[in-house]
């Protein structure tokens, strides 16, 4: 098993932390993982992206030009990464902030109304967790238990009371993928 994933959006949307939870969940599932952020001032409002690789074998490059799966949170990121998804790969995006929908037909394109779902959940901070749920379902990536353990590792102790809410958001994301 090897899954090469790019998660991309605006800084502040939870791109890096979503990648981090995914990486920790991979660790909990005894996979090899790399988490490589585009770091720097982008974190503060510009574009942000992170490459996460999950594999049951040692990982060579943490930097990629082709991805199995892209999780796209804004238009700039779609413009940049749509062409970088491998043929037969998967592109998950939130139509909320996209005005030119993906056009490729050789990949599986999955729109996920994550922003709408945050309104339902009444908490905008669950946004990235909804997309994470969609990713886990669409790619059948990791057992739930590993993801929750990953969450616990990522969240500081004082925020552990938010785990049920995050779980709810992940479930919501799963439901949004048919």
């Amino acid at each position: 098993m090897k899954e090469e994933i790019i998660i991309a959006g605006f800084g502040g949307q939870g791109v890096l932390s979503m990648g981090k939870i995914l990486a920790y969940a991979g660790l909990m599932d005894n996979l090899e993982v790399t988490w490589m952020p585009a770091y720097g001032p982008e974190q503060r409002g510009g574009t942000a992206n992170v490459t996460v690789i999950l594999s049951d074998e040692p990982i060579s490059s943490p930097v990629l030009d082709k991805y199995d799966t892209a999780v796209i949170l804004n238009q700039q990121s779609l413009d940049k990464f749509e062409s970088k998804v491998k043929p037969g790969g998967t592109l998950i995006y939130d139509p909320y902030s996209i005005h030119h929908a993906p056009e490729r037909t050789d990949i599986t394109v999955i729109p996920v109304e994550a922003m709408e779902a945050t309104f339902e959940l009444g908490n905008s901070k669950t946004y990235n967790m909804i997309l994470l749920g969609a990713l886990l379902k669409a790619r059948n990536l990791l057992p739930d238990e590993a993801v929750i353990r990953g969450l616990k590792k990522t969240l500081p102790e004082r925020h552990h009371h938010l785990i049920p809410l995050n779980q709810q958001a992940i479930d919501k994301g799963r439901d949004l993928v048919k």
Partner: protein
Amino acid sequence: MEEVKLMKGNEAIAHAAIRAGIDGYFGYPITPQSEVLETLEAEMPWRTTGMVVLQAESEVAAINMVYGGAAAGKAVMTSSSSPGISLKQEGISYIAAAELPALIVNVMRGGPGLGTIQPSQADYFQATKGGGHGDYHLIVLSPASVQEMADFVVEGIDLSFKYRTPVMILADGVVGQMMEKVVLPPFRPRRTDEQVREQCPWAAMGKGDRKHRNIVTSLELDPAPMEVNNERLQATYKRIAENEARCKEFYTDDAEYLIVAFGSIARISLKAIEEMREMGIKVGLLRPVTLWPFPTKEIERLSKQVKGILTVELNAGQMIEDVKLAAECKIPVHHFGRMGGIVPNPGEITHAFLSAFPEAKQN
């Protein structure tokens, strides 16, 4: 069972330092390595191992604190990124000249000047050819993974004491900022002052029961003894060159071409090689683990086997000079590099290789 953790390369440096029994860390914040100092301050090792952690007023002060701690026989280190390492060069020269052990970490960013905070390998010359003034070398370790960031802290400080010479971990922003699995080194206690006194009879730590005073200095105005000092340094470098050159080879057994790359770029190159192998092109990878001493013998050996070499570096072509010397102009050696903080992806490297050796594809 060993505990597997997930962390950034910079964080691994900090945790490994505490576990390695480092006595003192002196640093100054600079992107992309500030997590080293941040992690140490958060871990508060002065409460557990007794390790001293101090945010200095500048990189200049930090390296001189390292010089002071090393002169007193302690296991000390600093970390910074390219512009900060430039500031440290004076102190590094003094540490080398005074034959002191110390560990210096450079998480390279793009230059010259203030440059960019994105990854780079443009400090290769500075690290391997001296950096500061005078005839000296550092042992230069080049980590390619978070695991090696941790491991090289232990190996680096041990090498520095073995040869009484400063050791540099020359990392890049990719290895510093990425998260990976890591098994941290086991805890080993800091040496007691008595052990330091025994292990470092030269240390200026207070005379204690010693009859004579210890003086740590790099000054010798009389040229004749100064030349003797230099000859002693050069003898040490010769021993290091003979014993410590290290590299890793991948797919070299049947290789017809060779890529030489270090640090994170070696891993990106490996991915490109895997893709090229699928195309039927027999490319191998040699990754120097020590940049000084350079694995000259291994490259010389492979240069008799392969038809050509491509060096891939995050700079305008620095390590290529050492590769060319090793290959002794017998086969073509080409360079592919990106500068200014741009990290090439595997596809670019494949493209660069095929541009350099178009005949490789036809075979």
